């Protein structure tokens, strides 16, 4: 069990957001290049090579680390795109590369041994055997845990492995086992695993119709909203569908993960780092969430009373609803 200080790992979709996260108290910031090598390949988001180098300088000057996500899966005829991204991340002076693909992990392990390798959640490694394999083969130093494990399972896992673990604590919740979801591929031909984009915006439309607004993805109706009702992004797994004569959120309710009340439990379970999701979110969101978690983590580290972080961040959650997800598992 680790007794080191918990590390707060925060998202940055743009250089301005990186600076905001660092100034709000992030111990580490994760980001990606402006291409398909990372799982948030949205228009206008991410970093050029120069912007990353500048971001690393800024973060290091303020005592924070930068972790570069190169965590999509390479294509057989284009592996060089992923290898070059890893080379650029290493040259920028970043502190770690977050990867899932064997080709990327192998390339970094063989050519950039000075940089830490973190196993992306996209690898969906959740057993001591799987994590041990990645550690033995590629020397990974940390694994980002899939969001399907309970606190007890995380504690058991940490007792059985000798690499660090990083657990998501806030943000969008992916109900699928990461790296193995085909819903977006089915509907749009593009997936987070290969193209770095789930429910791509070029296939999204909001159509004003007599009864209100219809949100569609690649022509499929994902949800309908009455006039004046708040709308959402049409992510397929969070859509409302009719089955057996009943209309409901068939796959997943549009709720956000908030494990802010479990920081002490995660620390006790041996977790090294807490991760906030949301590279696609703006500076305001990142600043507010990072600041709240900074206070909560510091309170836990000082042995004080846990903060009511759910109340603090209720307005920042998707659908204004929160869940502790699998950490307090009541289902399987």
């Amino acid at each position, binding site marked *: 069990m680790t007794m080191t200080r918990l590390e707060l790992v925060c998202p940055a979709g743009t250089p301005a957001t990186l600076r905001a996260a660092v100034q709000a108290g992030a111990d580490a910031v994760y980001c990606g290049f402006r291409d398909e090598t990372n799982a948030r390949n*949205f*228009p*206008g988001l991410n970093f050029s090579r120069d912007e990353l180098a500048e971001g690393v300088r800024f973060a290091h000057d303020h005592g924070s680390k930068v972790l570069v996500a190169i965590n999509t899966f390479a294509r057989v005829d284009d592996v060089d795109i992923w290898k070059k991204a890893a080379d650029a991340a290493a040259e920028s002076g970043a502190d770690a590369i977050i990867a899932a693909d064997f080709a990327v992990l192998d390339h970094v392990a063989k050519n950039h041994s000075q940089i830490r390798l973190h196993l992306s959640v996209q690898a969906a490694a959740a057993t001591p055997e799987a994590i041990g394999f990645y550690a033995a083969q590629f020397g990974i130093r940390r694994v980002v845990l899939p969001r399907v494990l309970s606190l007890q399972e995380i504690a058991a896992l940490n007792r059985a492995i000798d690499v660090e673990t990083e657990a998501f604590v806030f943000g969008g919740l992916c109900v699928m086992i990461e790296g193995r979801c085909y819903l977006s591929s089915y509907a749009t031909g593009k997936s987070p695993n290969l193209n770095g984009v789930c429910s791509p915006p070029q296939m999204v439309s909001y159509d004003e119709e007599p009864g209100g607004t219809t949100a569609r993805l690649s022509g499929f109706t994902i949800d309908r909203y009455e006039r004046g*009702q*708040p709308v*959402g992004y049409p992510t397929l797994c969070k859509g409302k569908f009719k089955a057996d004569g009943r209309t409901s959120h068939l796959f997943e309710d549009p709720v956000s993960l908030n494990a802010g009340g479990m920081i002490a439990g995660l620390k006790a379970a041996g977790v090294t780092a807490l991760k906030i999701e949301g590279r696609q*979110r*703006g500076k305001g969101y990142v600043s507010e969430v990072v600041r709240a978690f900074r206070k909560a983590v510091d309170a836990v580290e000082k042995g004080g009373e846990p903060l009511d972080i759910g109340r603090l961040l209720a307005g920042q959650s998707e659908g204004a609803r929160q869940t502790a997800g699998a950490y307090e598992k009541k289902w399987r």
Partner: protein
Amino acid sequence: MRPPNAEPMLPGLFRQLFPAVAGLPLGPLLTLSLRSLARRRPGLFERLGESRSACFGIDPVDLAFAFRVVPEGQRSSVRVVSKDEAARSDVQIKGPLLTLLGLLDGTLDGDAMFFSRVISISGRTEAVLALRNTIEDAELRPADLLGLHGILARCVDTGVLGALSIARRLADKNPSGAREA
């Protein structure tokens, strides 16, 4: 009480004071300003990617006119157009003027304004997203658009942002304006 998704609107009098013809000089001025910004900060426009050549129809619902903007770096253009012409753009963004300005200077969050329906968008969603992310990263101040530096820039920023803040507070106290939407 204002409905939850109503943002402050300019009073109706303002619309009468600024008919469509009053907006015409804004086109060339904003075109020059955008091109000058592209010369000083080319990286800002690169972030738009393929959406640089998209035509954005910006429709402040409390003004009598709208804008058509093509943010193509040093070939950028801004034209003052009718509401109907703005609606024929690749992307249409509609909302109260003070809200649209708040998005530009970073005072307001674009996602929150869209999801709560204070602003509405239609057309090419990927272009809207690219624009939103570009503006988020740009951290534009009024002086950036005017190409000012130093003390003058700081004075202009303080003045313009202060004036906008006062305008928002005044509009917020003007529920009749909100009902005109």
